[in-house]
């Protein structure tokens, strides 16, 4: 893969958060004695790896604005010879993309709000309250993290079918409103909040729910942001469940449409597929670039994506 395109591929350089650029004194202290200078070889290897990792995205973006003929040309080209937005125009005219976009967003928003509310409530009492059944509850919730999705897929589908929720928005988001991951993340965060703060509020006569809403939640904003973003993207990218539950076009989410058109018999042209991939991926990447430190925080808090 050519280096020039790779370089252009780098995500837009953004202001690095302060913690990644340590001050001079710390920088020298952290460097082990043996290495005289952080050498060029390290940058070269890391840069090369980065080019390999990022190049599929670059190629996708470039090719989505190529003509169909150029996409099918052998040997393949990197830089588009003729720049065209035809693929995107056709995508929005032929397929009901605004509808799919709306469905994806709606489901992701509801799932995110549900997880923020329910997981923070349970995470709070698991971290800060002492009550009967606490350890058992925590173990059960944590234990389900190991259970494969395939175990619940079938019964869940039967359940949703019996509730008459197949091909409804409720059927799309109801099973995902309360995920164990969020409880784990919020609990880890709440453990770090000093008990004295909560006790002081109790002494002042605040009710438990008021303590939670007015004291604990404002403190938990960073953790909530992390959980919110991770949940939103997880829902946005989720495709298996919507593929099973959504049976008519008006309930499809973006990944479902893309999956149907890319694996199904109804082949559409390559340019359209790539443009569709861009529409699915680019909003996510934009969100990610701006909020990436929250992802790092989430991984640091729980060790899990």
């Amino acid at each position, binding site marked *: 893969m050519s280096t020039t395109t790779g370089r252009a591929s780098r*995500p837009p350089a*953004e202001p*690095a*958060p302060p913690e990644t650029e340590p001050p001079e004194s710390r*920088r020298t*202290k952290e460097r082990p*004695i043996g290495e005289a200078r*952080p050498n060029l070889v390290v*940058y070269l290897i*890391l840069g090369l790896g*980065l080019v390999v*990792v*990022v190049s599929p995205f670059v190629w*996708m973006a470039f*090719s989505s604005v190529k003509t169909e003929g150029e*996409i099918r040309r*052998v040997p*393949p080209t990197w830089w588009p010879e003729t720049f065209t937005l035809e693929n995107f125009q056709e995508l929005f005219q032929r397929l009901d993309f605004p509808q799919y976009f709306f469905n994806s967003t709606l489901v992701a928003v509801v799932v995110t709000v549900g997880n923020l509310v*329910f997981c923070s*409530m*349970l995470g709070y009492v698991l971290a800060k309250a*002492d*009550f*009967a*059944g606490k350890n058992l*509850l925590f173990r059960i919730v944590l234990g389900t993290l*190991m259970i*494969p*999705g*395939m*175990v619940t897929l*079938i*019964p869940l*589908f039967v*359940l949703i079918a019996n509730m008459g929720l197949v091909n409804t928005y409720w059927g799309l988001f109801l099973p995902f409103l*309360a995920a164990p991951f969020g409880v784990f993340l919020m609990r*880890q965060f709440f453990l770090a909040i000093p*008990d004295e703060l909560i*006790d002081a509020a*109790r*002494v002042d*006569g605040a*009710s*438990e*729910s008021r303590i*939670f809403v007015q004291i604990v939640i404002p403190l938990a904003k960073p953790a909530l942001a992390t959980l919110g973003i991770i949940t939103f993207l997880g829902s946005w*990218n989720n*495709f*298996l469940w919507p593929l099973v539950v959504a049976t008519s076009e008006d309930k499809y989410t973006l*990944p479902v449409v*893309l*999956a149907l058109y*890319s*694996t199904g018999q109804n082949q559409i042209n390559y340019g359209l597929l790539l443009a569709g991939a*861009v529409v*699915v991926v680019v909003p996510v990447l934009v969100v*990610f670039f701006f909020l990436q430190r929250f992802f*790092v925080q989430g991984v640091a808090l*729980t*060790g899990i994506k």
Partner: protein
Amino acid sequence: MTSGTTVRPGAQTPGRAGSYELRKHSPLYRRRTRAAWGFALPFVLLFAAFTVGPVLMSLVMAVTDLRSRDLRNPLAVEFVGLDNFVAVLQDPLFRKAAANTAYFVLVGVPLALAISLAIAVLMNSGITRFRTIFRVGYYMPVVTSIVAVAVVWRFLLHPDLGMVNQALGWVGIEGPNWLESTTWAMPAMIAMAVWRSIGTLIIIFLAGLQGVPTSLHEAAALDGAGAWQRFRHVTLPTMRPTILFGAVITGIGYVQFFEEPFVMTQGGPLNSTLSVAFHTYNQFGFGNYGYAAAMSYVLFVAVVVLALVQFRLLGERDTPRKPRRTLRPVASKEIGR
């Protein structure tokens, strides 16, 4: 929320709020329990209905001959004991899928760990510029939709139109028709899975590397240890819990290997990329609910066994009872920073 507001134990007992060692069965303890369950209730209800319930229901299904047409007439369903499990283990297609999954896990997990560890160590080796760019770049595949990624990768792996074979051509190698080859389809899946999982592992390992004491490195360097020796004898031993953690979460994900073949190859060619999870999904599609449920439990057992094996191989040697507790210490250690 509402149930939380009805009970206000804290408000009525401001004076004793600080005492945590409450006697069990004291009125205050009971009131606190009720208040806490009020907070827990919304989650617990949803969790019971949509996670715990289905898990148990799946177990029940696994010991019956339930098929999709029986859903209208549940009385026709019969208890068959372990027949489904026996049938699963005798199913040649399942064996093929199990072998494929083992291939994927045994090659993929060590590969992902090794690459991520190498990158993390390089990123931690004193470089100061572009750290954010590297971190963001390597993490990009983690946040993007597998469906969209599959569209792109199928192009990249295309024998004539694809960039992979073009790049191989530059160094004089004629690349195979990746996704149509029984030999090369699986390596392609593994490459894609590794590409998608190193971002998370790098961040975990970077956090772990912060815990390797600089003084140890300095002492080793003074004693004349080279970079590789220090990595081998200082970094690796200190990183053991973090590597174990990374191995376990990656392993749990890789055993359930489903999305890659689903969007890339549909299990082909000639079932060479059929995974256990994908086979389960297909049986579900055919309406063999009992059979599929039994297979999903076999997968569950495989996940647990793999995790236990990893604890054995990578866990600390001196404390045999480590397995049950290691997940939490690693994670909670990391919030400290």
